[in-house]
């Protein structure tokens, strides 16, 4: 029995996938497209007459606070990219140019910052690097000056750069590793070397990788709500949107105007990255890889390299260290270290914050499950069927990347507050399930990409073999495709889980009661009271542990899956 390409809209062989596609499309439309559209509509609507108008945007740009916020967001994102690059560049250089013994340290550096969500470490960073924080107290005492690490926007830039530089490091390293060695050798044989060689050959070839990493960092910093909020920096776009909606109310047009601007800017940044990369996918026009020629380091170079790497490591670990100190410290005020140490905060967390932990596990678990189910389904529909318009599903799911968490939250509030959950007396916007859905939607692009990658590892001929032996499509999917994808699916699940567990931007908009709150919200609430910083930090450490565990498990699964696939002879 052979499988014909789908013929006819509702042909029998197509019905299953088609119905699935429609269901998924409905889900995405209802929980992504509609809320975002609603936000856009309100922004362009005259609040009293309901007619189309640009007056809200005019008001936005006429108000100096908003103009300042817009500029600040842009400034902070750009400078964060610059600082992150400054951190990542020497590290990428050491690993790609030299046989450097500290490469393992650098690889760890690529992961450690990502396991602590920036807002969690922000408060602790204040204590270490604030104007009267540990570092400055020491500097002032011994050297007579201070460095405004955490003043205003600097604090946001500092925290974000340390957190996001791995994106640049990883992308840049990969790009450098992919350079065909003969690119460099041919330039050498033509008389070029050193800086000239770097400038004319290595740099342009690694540019696409760098731009990919840099654009990710830019968007993430631009959209982030948690960090500025916890650092008390409010003259930026995301916090302003949050504040307008939460203090003035969901009828205030400014929150929506800001949301629109956030989304447009995110899309713009993605478009710029796309342009920069278009036609420059150098990986495919280069035949071999091999990376750059590596040489050994001279002792002086080794010393400098290690010094730089260890310094960066110290800075990168500082939020973790500070958070740890805060979680164990009794009182930490105007001193280099806490006065004394205690386990009290952890006791409090485990005895009274059990709800936060329970909610987090539940929400993140459900969200991750939804993500891999939908991700796998979309992956299969887009890449293995010929259903018309299937690419739209892919784009729709990926478009969630351009929607900041705060915007999604605002959209949900607006769209769903008038609907009640069936059988209960609660508006849907206040029901905890909506948090799960927000988390799922936000993580879906990543999970889906993981599923697509996993699917592409499974050669089509494996499916065809199954079908030629008489199995129907559904059976083939169940018995052949999905089991072979499990490694990738599991990895996608774990990553979704770990990142959903510490999401704050959308959560903070949608949480209506502490009983329903997950860890991220719990941390935020704890940090609002004098006696709560200790337990808040303890909860933060817990969150870090969850994410670290998740990342580790995910990496192991991917490793195992790669080993398994490496043995299978048939690769695409």
């Amino acid at each position, binding site marked *: 029995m052979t499988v014909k390409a789908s013929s006819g809209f509702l042909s029998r062989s197509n019905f299953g996938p088609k119905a699935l596609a429609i269901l998924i499309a409905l889900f995405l439309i209802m929980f992504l497209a509609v809320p975002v559209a609603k936000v856009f509509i309100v922004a362009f609507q005259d609040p009293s007459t309901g007619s189309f108008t640009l*007056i809200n945007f005019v008001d936005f740009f006429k108000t100096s606070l908003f103009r*300042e916020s817009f500029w600040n967001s842009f400034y902070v994102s750009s400078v964060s990219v610059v600082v992150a690059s400054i951190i990542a560049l020497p590290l990428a250089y050491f690993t790609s140019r030299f046989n450097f013994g500290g490469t393992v340290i650098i690889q760890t550096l690529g992961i450690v910052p990502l396991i602590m969500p920036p807002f969690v470490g922000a408060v602790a960073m204040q204590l270490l690097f604030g104007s009267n924080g540990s570092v400055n107290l020491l500097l002032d005492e011994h050297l007579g000056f201070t460095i405004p690490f955490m003043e205003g926007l600097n604090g946001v830039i500092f925290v974000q750069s340390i957190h996001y530089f791995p994106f640049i490091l990883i992308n840049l390293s990969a790009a450098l590793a992919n350079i065909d060695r003969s690119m460099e050798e041919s330039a050498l044989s033509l008389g070029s070397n050193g800086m000239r060689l770097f400038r004319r050959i290595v740099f342009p070839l690694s540019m696409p990788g760098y731009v990919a990493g840099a654009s990710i960092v830019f968007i993430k910093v631009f959209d982030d709500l948690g960090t500025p909020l916890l650092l008390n920096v409010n003259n930026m776009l995301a916090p302003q949107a949050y504040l307008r909606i939460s203090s003035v109310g969901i009828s205030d047009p400014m929150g929506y105007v800001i949301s629109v601007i956030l989304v447009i800017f995110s899309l713009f940044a993605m478009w710029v990255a796309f342009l920069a990369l278009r036609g420059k996918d150098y990986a495919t026009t280069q035949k071999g890889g091999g990376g750059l020629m590596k040489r050994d380091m001279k002792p002086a170079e080794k010393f400098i390299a290690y010094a730089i790497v260890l310094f960066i490591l110290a800075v990168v670990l500082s939020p973790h260290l500070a958070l740890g100190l805060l979680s164990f410290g009794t009182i930490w005020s105007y001193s280099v270290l806490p006065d004394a140490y205690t386990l009290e905060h952890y006791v409090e967390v485990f005895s009274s914050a059990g709800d936060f932990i329970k909610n987090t596990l*539940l929400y993140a678990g459900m969200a991750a499950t939804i993500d891999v189910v939908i991700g796998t389904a979309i992956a299969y529909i887009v890449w293995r069927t010929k259903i018309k318009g299937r690419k739209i599903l892919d784009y729709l799911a990926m478009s969630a990347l351009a929607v900041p968490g705060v915007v999604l939250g605002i959209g949900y509030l607006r769209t769903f*507050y008038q609907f009640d959950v069936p059988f209960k007396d*609660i508006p849907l916007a206040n029901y905890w399930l909506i948090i799960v859905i927000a988390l799922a939607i936000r993580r879906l692009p990543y999970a889906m990409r993981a599923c697509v990658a996993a699917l592409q590892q499974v050669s089509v001929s494996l499916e065809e073999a199954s079908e030629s032996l008489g199995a129907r499509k559904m059976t083939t999917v169940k018995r052949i495709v999905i089991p072979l994808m*499990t490694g990738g699916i599991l990895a996608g699940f774990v990553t979704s889980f770990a990142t959903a567990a510490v999401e704050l931007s959308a959560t903070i908009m949608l949480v209506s009661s502490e009983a329903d709150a997950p860890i991220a919200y719990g941390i935020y609430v704890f940090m609002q009271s*004098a006696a709560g910083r200790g337990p808040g930090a303890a909860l933060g450490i817990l969150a870090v542990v969850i994410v670290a565990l998740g990342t580790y498990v995910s990496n192991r699964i991917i490793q195992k899956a790669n080993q398994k696939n490496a043995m299978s002879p048939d690769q695409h």
Partner: protein
Amino acid sequence: MAFQNKEVIKKLTTVVIGSTALMLSLSVNAADGQLTIVTSFPSDLTKVFKKAFEKDNPGIKLEILKKKTTAGVKYIQETSAKNRTDLFWASAPDAFEVLKDDSLLQKYESSVKGLPDKVGAFPVNDPDGYYKGFAAAGYGIMWNERYIKAKKLPAPAQWADLTKAVYHNHVGMSAPSRSGTTHLTVETLLQGKGWDEGWKMQKEIAGNFKTVTERSFGVPDGVNSGNFGIGIVIDFFGLSSKGSGFPVDFVYPTATTLVPANIAIVANAPNKENAGKFIDYLLEPNGQELLLDPKIRRLPVNPATYAKAPEGFPNPFKDSSIGAAVKFDLTKSKNRYNLVNSLFDVMITYRLDDLRKATKAIQDAEAALAKKPNDDAAKLIAEARALIAKLPIAEAKSLDKEFAGIFKKKRKKATDKVTGRQAEVEQEWDKFVVENYAKAKELAEKAQSML
């Protein structure tokens, strides 16, 4: 390997589905003996009361929805059609006034009798009976002892102290637009010293600001962590921080007022009876005593409770200096609420840098003047000070209902393009203020160059 993974997925799915079902079933059961409270109080306070109340009333379960005062008001307004909130529990009485005006509260007669009518100069309860005061708070100055010791600053005692040059860049405060309690502080200052003098002092203090925090908690937080040394705060922030062990202290300046923290039953509350029980609990001696908890530290409205208070705990019923100086006019405050918020933000919050620089220039000039008296320079400095203190509108305008109405963020009439006008006015003010601060700085620098 694939087989194992499949098993893992199966197990995971079962666990997730199972716990979802469990959660759903659990939440369905939580319907009886419920009480929903929207409050702006921090968990330090709500936790204590929740535990104690639930212990005393085992059948009732409290659900606390924590929201900032303004957010809480908005929330109740927006969900009024399908209201499921029983109580609104917050500090600022003007928030209650707003809800009262919108007919979103209902009257309640408490069974607890014998509590005084006034604390300090302020009535404890709403005369119309819609909301009750259960604790009082005053405003004052909080400082970090290690900080002032290290920076060799004298401990402040009065508002006027904070205008001194020695405190430049060491003071923190929240903005009235972002904190109901801060709004009360500012309004108290304005009513106590008068519109012009009040703003003048406010700006002189603001010239010493290191920062204007986003929320009222940002101030004690900043003082506690040593970010800045001195904060203008509501008393329980200072007292509870001290009670939690931070190296901080607190003082009431003479010109302060005491304002009650309130609670009221929301109109169409689903659990009216339970709501009443909670209010009664707050006012009973047991409930009042909870206020003495070191993490809470609010002033009980029951004079008898003070007998159990620790040494040094302020007692407004015994110490008449606390909170008696200013007679607070609630109506005045209500009418120009948003206008004052805007004015503060435009003149101070958004232009803090300019204000600070101008103030520093003046302070430096005055320090030089003290060493080398010079009439001309003194005149310039006085002019500079006047420029900073200048206001874009007189008090009369602030009380003009129509003008103040521009600043209402909610549009009442379809024909009002309110936001547009508000933005316009704010832009005017902004220009006014920027010019004046710049000129003041110029004059002060000129004065200094003459010395």
